């Protein structure tokens, strides 16, 4: 059996290609099942090396491995990091590529052993026709919880994946997620139509992280507490914010107040080059503190982050668990601090509002569609045109488009008009929208309930996801008597030495240390 031979090579490839010496829990088990040709659902905590579960088979198997990944920036970063490790036959195909680049890649698809794709681009007939011509041995769905309508990050395009997989000759599937409760897991298996999928579920709790919630009077006190906290502990620190402008403003303030600390900000609005520079500086210990939005963290394997502070909290526990999970990957004692002031929920609340269309907006879209239908027209092809015509944002349109499609009102650009049916469909969509809103609202309430909880925070945090949790390796949480007095982390100073002259710096950069001592 060819696959038996492959399995003997696992350790060799691990050390040669990935420069790692042992598998982390779950990795080998999942890879072994995949090489046997089984479908796998893998739930592994943040920072456990999920991506190795497909990167290694991609290297080992003949043919090509496809990875569907929802975030374009993450996809691009991963490809760059893989190439840096010498894994050259890997590519990301997404909407950022121009026509010519795309053509060049399509003409040469079989040359890649690993192809990252966005779910949207996988709907394009042209790409699909090229994909059907190559030998695909593994189909990976990253952030697979996006497939569940009742997951916290539903992406309609994920529901179409099973038909794509069929077109590609039904290769084995690997569905990966860090946070999927049992309902979502069942949803994933159902939507992919692979009832025999083997589940590999690993506990997501982190015994080395303590949870601390601090309640504060107002914004002023919050800022003061934050400043005091990061000035007391010089350790690699992440501070999460809801809004981009806050990351910039607070980073600026901290940098001004704490002159011996290196502070940077990071959010999705930075250009790709600067984003990568900041990530690399953090990995290289050139930075102490990063003020960031949720865009930061995925795909970053810095193992000594000691402090994760939430200046703003996310809209659901799933995101909170993921963000906190970026602390203490090396198993060292780390702290999650959530700074809370009353009314902090206003921001996540407004995010929920922006995600779902209002009744008026849905009615307007129906009106516009019927106008088009009367004139025997289709809906515009380009997204900006649609958004302009329908007067709603992109997130809302994606949601509605999916609903209209499942109600058979839309098929691609085609509109199927039927007055009676449309009336019922409108009601149906309205109900769905309401249920979805309620679901999101409940998620936010759970988050708030957790913040206000008076019992063990660790127990509460993981209760929805698993039946038990490991006992804390160090301190537990606020309600179990957490105290900063008991936390003495090893000071981690940044590598940046006292400011050098440009002459010294240039010499160091180009000729290195040994020349400096001469």
């Amino acid at each position: 059996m060819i696959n038996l031979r492959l399995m003997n090579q696992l350790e060799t490839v691990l050390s040669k290609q990935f420069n790692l010496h042992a598998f982390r829990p779950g990795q080998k088990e999942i890879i072994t099942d995949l090489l046997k040709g089984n479908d796998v659902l893998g739930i592994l905590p943040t920072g456990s090396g999920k991506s190795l579960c497909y990167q290694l088979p991609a290297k080992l198997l003949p043919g090509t491995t496809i990875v569907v990944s929802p975030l374009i920036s993450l996809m691009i970063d991963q490809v760059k990091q893989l190439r840096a490790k010498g894994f050259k036959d890997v590519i990301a195909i997404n909407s950022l590529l121009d026509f010519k680049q795309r053509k060049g890649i399509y003409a040469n698809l079989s040359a890649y052993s690993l192809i990252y794709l966005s779910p949207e681009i996988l709907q394009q007939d042209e790409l699909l026709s090229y994909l059907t011509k190559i030998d695909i041995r593994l189909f990976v769905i990253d952030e697979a919880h996006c497939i569940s309508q009742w997951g916290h990050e539903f992406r309609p395009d994920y529901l179409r994946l099973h038909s794509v997989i069929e077109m590609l000759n039904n290769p084995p599937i690997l569905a990966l997620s860090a946070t999927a409760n049992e309902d979502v897991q069942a949803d994933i298996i159902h939507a992919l139509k692979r009832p025999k999928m083997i589940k590999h579920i690993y506990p997501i709790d982190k015994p080395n992280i303590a949870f601390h919630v601090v309640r504060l009077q107002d914004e002023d006190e919050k800022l003061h507490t934050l400043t005091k906290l990061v000035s007391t502990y010089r350790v690699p620190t992440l501070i999460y914010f809801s809004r981009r402008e806050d990351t910039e403003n607070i980073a600026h303030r901290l940098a001004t107040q704490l002159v011996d600390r290196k502070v940077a900000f990071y959010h999705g609005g930075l250009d790709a080059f600067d984003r990568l520079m900041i990530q690399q500086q953090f990995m290289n210990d050139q930075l102490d503190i990063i003020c960031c939005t949720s865009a930061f963290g995925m795909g970053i394997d810095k193992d000594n982050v000691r402090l994760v502070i939430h200046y703003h909290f996310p809209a659901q526990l799933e995101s909170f668990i993921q963000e906190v999970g970026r602390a203490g990957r090396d198993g060292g004692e780390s702290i999650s601090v959530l700074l809370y002031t009353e009314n902090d929920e206003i921001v996540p609340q407004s995010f929920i509002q922006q995600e779902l269309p209002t009744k008026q907006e849905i009615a307007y879209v129906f009106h516009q569609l019927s106008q088009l239908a009367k004139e025997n027209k289709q809906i515009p092809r380009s997204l900006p045109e649609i958004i302009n015509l329908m007067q709603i944002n992109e997130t809302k349109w994606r949601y509605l488009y999916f609903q209209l499609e499942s109600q058979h009102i839309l098929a691609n650009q085609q509109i199927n008009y039927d007055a009676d049916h449309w009336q019922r469909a409108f009601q149906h969509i309205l109900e769905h929208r309401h249920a979805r809103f309620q679901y999101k609202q409940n998620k936010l309430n759970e988050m708030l309930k957790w913040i206000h909880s008076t019992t063990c925070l660790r127990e509460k945090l993981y209760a929805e996801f698993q039946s038990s949790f490991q006992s804390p390796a160090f301190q537990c949480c606020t309600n179990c008597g957490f105290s900063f007095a008991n936390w003495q982390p090893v000071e981690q100073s940044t590598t940046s030495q006292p400011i050098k002259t440009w002459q010294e710096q240039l010499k160091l950069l180009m000729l290195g240390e040994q020349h400096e001592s001469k």
Partner: protein
Amino acid sequence: MSFVVKAIFNTLHKIDHERDRSVIFKGIILTSCAKINGERTIQSIYHLLTGKRSIQTVLDAHLYGLDHLYGIHRQLSLQSFNKIVADLMRNHYIRTSHEDKVYLLTDRGKKWLATHKKKLKLSSFQGFTYNRMDSIFYARLILFIQVLANQRMQHTAYIPVVDQPSITNWVKKTYKYLYPNLDRPVHELYRELHQILSTLSNLEADLFVNRLTGYKQVGLSIQQLAQMYQMSGEDIQLVLMRIIHQMISIIYTSPSDYQMMSLMLRDLTKINLLTNSANETYKLFKKGYNLQQIATIRQLKMNTIQDHIVEIALYDQTIPIDQFVSDQAKTEIIQAIHQVNSTKLKTIKQHVGEKISYFQIRLVLTRYIR
């Protein structure tokens, strides 16, 4: 919600403003406004700075003595441009002239420019002359430094600071050419950089080096440099470009002193910097096809092919334009230019006969540069 934060930052913002972080950007806009003196719209300055490849922009650049600022900030967003124009208006450095969309310097603007003129060192820019080769040179240089620094430590797992294939391929090729004897080129490039940076101000040299990435030492982002030097991101970009132009000029003056850096410039001639599409047209043109044939072969409109020819003529002063414009037409166009005392295409067109096309006027105008 965050009223306190906002209050604090409003104050900070005010202080920032007083310190004036965009001195160079501001100086460039004011200088351009002063030279153009209301004869062109404010958008023409945006086209100038972003280096729009249109005959009108290139011509205007030369006509108003602004060719050194052509294309010096190609990434400039229209948003930041509009913002600084609005700032200058609000602070009464410029004003609009009555019904027109044109902007004029106020006395305050003139005074500011006079006091800051020296400090801006705008004459160090050579935008048109080094158009596009500047950024290619810079990308090659910083990637080459990173590659050499990492190879010296025998470190192969790093993310390149530049990922455009045209640049990475050049660096690969050159690296192979120099390999295996890399020690000498490393020391030579170090010596050259040291020497060339010594001709700059301390701040400029410092800023340039801080942006470099080497072995386990990642350069600073534009925002980080902006924070560090208390300048706006735009000014950081502009200072970097000014440094690059100064460097290229020094290298050209004494190439034997800068052998490694000359290598990075050697193949960058103007004609190589045509847009890809114009280059395709140029190849066919050199093979002797006429414009109609080229349009058919390339399945493009005649207008597009004509645009290419104008672009080519702009960069290559040796290509003959006689086959497109008769001597008589040429004389007529030149007379019209003198009569109306303008290089505005529309104005010229109105003064020449029906038979003379825009294409012909543009071609004749390309010969008016330099």
